[in-house]
């Protein structure tokens, strides 16, 4: 028998078997995007569950399937956890039908989140595009909650149009700790805010590159523009953290779907610093 396996002692926990969680509240945040507040059915799990902002869960419905979804609530909130789901296919469509009292299944948390502990004492800039605000919201709320630990907070957020902006009712509370600037690609005439590319927001805020960490999550098309602008402003690669999306199945570095050259995005990511992925031509596409 293989010598690599433990002969005695407890068998390893089966990674692929999910745990049941119950929907406490759900609401539509934007067309096709739903927010869920959940708790584990097993009260022991609610206590034991801990994670970092930027980590994700493998969320499933039995008989339909499984998909990676970021946790969008802060780790500082201990009794429940939250997800924000965009309707994109079979599973996500079925998730949208869930109502309070219904259950779904999760396993995780997986991956490496944003290294907030290492950012203590620094200013933080969050750059989000579309549903990319979901994992950032976890980090923003965490930073807001631990505000003494960090310098100035800046949230730069872009969406397709005003009705697609997520968590709009929370910007005021974020503003108490910092700045929130929003922009949309296109808007009806009555829109009072900005329209244009997300990079335009870098012109309306003043940043101190030397003492600032940047946290980015959004569609791949956004990355090159934002990174180009950050470079112009003098940010260093090691201070920029980006959450990469990839096709994922296992979440634990076994199925090979999420690989970017030498990185397993599910295990070593999804959050990686630009420093780590420099030289990987296919990382930011």
């Amino acid at each position, binding site marked *: *028998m*293989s*010598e*690599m*396996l433990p002969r005695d002692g407890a*068998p*390893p*926990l*089966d*990674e*692929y*078997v*999910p745990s*049941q969680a119950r929907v406490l509240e759900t609401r539509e945040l934007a067309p096709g995007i739903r927010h869920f507040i959940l708790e584990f059915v097993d009260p022991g799990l609610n206590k034991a569950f801990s994670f970092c902002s930027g980590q994700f869960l493998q969320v*499933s419905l*039995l*008989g*339909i*399937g*499984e*998909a990676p979804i970021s946790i969008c609530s802060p780790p500082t909130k201990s009794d429940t956890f939250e997800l924000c789901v*965009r309707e*994109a*296919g079979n599973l*996500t469509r079925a998730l949208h039908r869930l109502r309070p009292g219904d*259950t779904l*299944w999760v396993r995780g948390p997986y991956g490496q989140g944003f290294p907030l502990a290492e950012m203590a004492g620094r200013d933080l800039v969050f750059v989000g595009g579309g549903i990319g605000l979901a994992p950032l919201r976890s980090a923003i709320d965490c930073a807001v909650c631990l505000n003494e630990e960090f310098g100035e907070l800046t949230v730069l957020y872009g969406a397709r149009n005003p009705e697609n902006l997520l968590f709009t009712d929370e910007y005021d509370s974020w503003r108490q700790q910092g700045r929130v600037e929003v922009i949309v690609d296109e808007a009806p005439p009555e829109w009072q805010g900005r329209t244009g590319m997300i990079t335009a927001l870098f012109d309306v805020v003043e940043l101190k590159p030397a003492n600032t960490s940047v946290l980015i999550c959004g569609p*791949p098309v956004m990355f090159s523009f934002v990174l180009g602008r950050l470079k112009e402003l003098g940010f260093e690669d090691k201070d920029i953290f980006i959450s990469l*999306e*990839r*096709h994922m*199945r*296992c979440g*634990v*570095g*076994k*199925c*090979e*779907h999420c*690989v*970017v*050259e*030498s990185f397993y995005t599910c*295990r070593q990511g999804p959050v990686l610093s630009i420093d780590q992925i420099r030289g990987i*031509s*296919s990382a930011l*596409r």
Partner: protein
Amino acid sequence: MNSRESENQEIPGLAGVQAIPELLAWLRGISARQRLYIPADKGGNRIFEEFGLSDGPVLNQLQERTVLPVKKLFLPPSEILFDFSHEVIRPPAEPEDIVVFGLHVCELSADSLLTANMANDRPDFPYLSRRDRGLTIGVTCQRSPGCFCEKTGHDHVSPGSFDLFLDLGEPGRPRLLAGSDAGRELAAAAPFVLEEAAQEITAPPASNPERWPLESLPERIHDSFGAVMWDELAARCLGCGNCTIVCPLCYCFYTRDETELDPAMGRRLRLWDSCQLLAFARVAGGHNFREARSERIWYRFSHKFMRTQQTFGAPGCSGCGACFHFCPVGIDPRQVIAGVLEVTKKSYEE
């Protein structure tokens, strides 16, 4: 008993020992106690099959490769991760104890590496629980056509990679070597004298001039990204995924739920996947991170010679040659690596 068995008169290395009937009797004894898999003949192909199920074992042609490697026994093409019924999850039945006879040296090596990969970081329970209940009996390799383990370093048995090993190295003097306690027990009724696997057999051979420069391959593969050679391969490759299916060190999978007529009842399956298929890296919204076939081929080789080499110090290619043998257009890793060595020659050999 069937007619085939009597035809199995000669095994190179066993010739003159008249050991075939005893060998078969021993194997039959094992199969009476637990499931025994052994290379069998199926319409002209070799496959690992349960002893006594089909046409019969093909002991006289142990050198020929089976269509699917032993991975199919420990990571089945389709397996149940769990069953569910009305929101209750049930784990699948415990795996059975099995014995597999007739693994080539490169196969033992690949099996160890696959197991190391599955045990690494977050252990893969379904695989490991099955593997943990498997015993392997290796056999001296007589070399399948088109194999090249001398190039990959998977050309010797290492301690711990087998439970028993039938060493046919010296003609007419077969030796049965023990690699584990379980193997020693299995050998109780064997027709050969049992010896402890000594250094001489498990020691890596002196450096082989044929060996690829494995240390530098990760960087060379990295540097070859985008080279014309990958486009040329892509122009020939059919993207069928055969190469990954027959590979002992390919293990990509996907998961799928399957339901009964009552959709509250069913099971979650995991199935073999292939990085050579178009949809492998496609995400919601239709964006495909590896749309180009040339990139997919590069990824296959980067997995084997970059990531696996970096993580485990050995390439994720045993050199069995199965992918080449079963590829409809004959894409040969030896030519691919030769190509990589060629396009990166300048920077490494100055």
